[in-house]
């Protein structure tokens, strides 16, 4: 496989145009931290690395926005933003290596999503190099903008199958003045679900809530951000529910797992019965699971209307699941066809063989 490292978005588009003419498959690559997510590509001729597209173009801190090239790592971006007391409110896996483009394409938001929304809610503009060499923008630099179609959302989580993200603009949040993490151990899954429901139904505004299930008693971690007064008042409220003890923010360290699940928040316990492994599930219903029973778990979750996506291949199983795309799959194929008619971008990696 040839590796190319364009110096600019224009060059990336030109490389794609050439590859498209030759019918050569292109595998876009950021930090390479999640190259084994999705199904393996059917063919790999060229690897297009965004390593040289790594600049923070504009941190408009007074406007709470940043425009950044796709190859910039999340950690580098956050360091730049922190100089003005701001951040992109996401906490993806492996931030030191993972890039903006890769994190967007794989839609890896993290546990802060409960409070701040997902990548899809934080991205406000995108620059995209299409297979035929078109360089297109959608959205813009302002947080509120409904002009034209929102292609930022189309390509977030699209695994690079519609085009190569060369840059993006995000809305930002201030870094919290104070943070506080507390944890409670609960006797079993049923008690865990009950407590979780209670927390989500209370008038609390945690930045993140997760359950950790494995050997031993299940744990619930809650992260608060904000003013000291607000945090203490909320921790007191939690302690009225059950004994919560202070913990280190490290408990929110992301888990490198075999599968990503998404279920309804009130059905997390049910999902994790018979886990026989280890799981961290966020209060949004998104979770990270290590278990020898992933195929059975997938059956159960899909039956409940959720999804289980493999992050490490299992022979004979599609990464995306048996119901992926549903009745919208033909439309997804039609979109792929219009954006990448020769199917050169990450062929076969996405749902339904896209």
């Amino acid at each position, binding site marked *: 496989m040839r590796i190319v490292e364009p110096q600019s978005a224009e060059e990336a588009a030109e490389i794609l145009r050439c590859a498209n003419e030759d019918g050569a498959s292109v595998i876009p690559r950021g930090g390479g931290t999640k190259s084994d997510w999705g199904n393996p590509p*059917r063919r790999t001729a060229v690897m297009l690395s965004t390593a040289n597209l790594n600049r923070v173009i504009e941190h408009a801190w007074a406007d709470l926005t940043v425009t950044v090239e796709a190859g910039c790592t999340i950690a580098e971006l956050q360091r730049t933003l922190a100089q003005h007391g701001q951040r992109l409110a996401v906490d993806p896996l492996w931030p030191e290596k993972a890039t903006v483009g890769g994190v967007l394409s794989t839609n890896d938001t993290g546990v802060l999503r409960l409070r701040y929304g997902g990548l899809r809610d934080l991205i406000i503009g995108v620059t995209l190099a299409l297979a035929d060499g078109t360089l297109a923008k959608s959205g813009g630099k*302002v947080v509120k903008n409904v002009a034209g179609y929102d292609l930022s959302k*189309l390509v977030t*989580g699209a695994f690079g199958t519609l085009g190569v993200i060369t840059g993006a603009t995000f809305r930002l949040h201030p870094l919290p003045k104070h943070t506080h993490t507390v944890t409670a151990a609960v006797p079993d899954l049923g008690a865990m679900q009950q407590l979780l429901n209670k927390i989500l*139904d209370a008038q609390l505004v945690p930045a993140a809530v997760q359950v950790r299930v494995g050997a031993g008693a299940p744990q619930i971690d809650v992260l608060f951000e904000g*003013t000291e007064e607000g945090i203490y008042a909320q921790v007191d409220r939690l302690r009225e529910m059950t004994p919560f003890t202070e913990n280190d923010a490290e408990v929110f360290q992301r888990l490198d797992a075999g599968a990503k699940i998404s279920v309804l928040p009130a059905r997390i316990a049910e999902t994790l019965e018979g886990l026989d492994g280890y799981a961290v599930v966020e209060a949004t219903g998104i979770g990270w699971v290590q278990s020898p029973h992933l195929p059975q778990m997938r059956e159960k979750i899909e039956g409940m209307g959720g999804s289980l996506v493999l992050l490490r291949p299992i022979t004979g199983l599609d990464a995306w699941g048996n119901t992926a795309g*549903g009745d919208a799959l033909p439309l997804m194929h039609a979109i792929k066809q*219009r954006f990448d008619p020769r199917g050169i971008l990450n062929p076969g990696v996405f749902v339904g063989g896209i």
Partner: protein
Amino acid sequence: MSFLDELRSILGPQGLISSPEETRTYECDGLTNFRVMPLAVVLPTSTEQVQAVIRVCHRERIPFVARGSGTGLSGGALPVNNGIVISLARMNQILEVDLANHRIVVEPGVINLNVTGRVAPAGYFYAPDPSSQSVCSIGGNVAENAGGAHCLKYGFTTTHVLALEVVLPDGTLAHFGSKTLDAPGYDLAGVFVGSEGTLGVATKITLRIMKRPECVQTLLAAFNSTNEAGAAVSDIIAAGMLPAAMEMMDNLAIQAAEAAVHANYPNCGGLLLVEIDGPVAEVDTLIAQVSAICRENGATEIRVAQTEEERAVVWKGRKAAFASVGRISPNYIVQDGVIPRTALPKILDEIERLGRESGLRVANVFHAGDGNLHPLVMYDRRIAGQEKAAEKLSERILELCIEMGGSITGEHGVGEEKKHMMGKMFAEPDLATMQRLRCSFDPLALANPTKVFPTPRLCGETPGEYQPHPLEIAGIAERF
């Protein structure tokens, strides 16, 4: 059977309107200076009826425009020539309330405020709150990606739409998104929200509802000028706060609000509303900080509304701002531009200068936190040349927004009104790429076909669903 007879057979006599006296109600939406008479108006009561109607439209190549409550301000629901209007007003049932998972499933004709109304007893609310929320429908909100005063903190309609049932422009039914997050596949719900009726018709919508904050306080501060008020907004943001809402009005807008609803606003050069919500202890601290910042920036009067009643009074003038302008001017154009927030003083100076030059008054109401301006350009249609001058002025304001790195619409949509501005905001490759998306949904250009984009374009290749060959799926062969 004629086209109309066929529609009648699908919908029954009560579900079809075709006499000009009755269809005239539908000739425009909230933007009344564009009017087109539809061929007919259908009022389906079920997804199946919507599908049946669209299948006939598809077969007969008749364009259709979906319509909610018709409160849109960009002509998105304006009928198209020789096309029908599909009113979703009768599909107004709340289908499912799932409090444990913070979800609610509604039909498109449900009124925005009724969503909150339904879940309020349990302490929940639906966050997007466009000013028209007591009459506008969720289907229309989805089409326009409606915003409102509180999207600074809570996001727009798109943040709160989890799943959609959509009738595609050929009549097939498809489901986008899911009650669970990150359903595998392209984020078609994200693409559909804000597509202004050009990608199909939503017939069922799953929304996220949220727990009401423990406490809400609204601070009203009077300044001598909008520049001072704007400086206070900057300082609030620089202090690391994210209020639920930050709204600003200039003197003319305040006068209009006073004349219309007697909101008892101080008569000042710039009025700022800051709403903070959350745990009581936090809100108290932050409101004190906001007060201090306002005083430092020259606020001459500060009031804090703490009860629901007091807050309602404070918001009354703001929510009525557009309609109020009718009290001080016979006609006016509502604009919806966006600028990076820091460009606020600059654009306000420019707007004032342009207003003076053209002899027109402009009242300004804005969502100050996110830079969304609503200049209200006042004119008198009876005075020759004023309407044209007002149109020219409001267009020039949008050009300024583009020049300053902003957008031609923050929440009202492009619709009919601003489609000619799209070429100024986006380059040709950008528009062509959006067109690819449109063609994959609607290759025959039947869904609201004349809106959003500057020139109607036809989709190149003949349509036809791409069906992957079994060998492709098995990874044996690759299509080229």
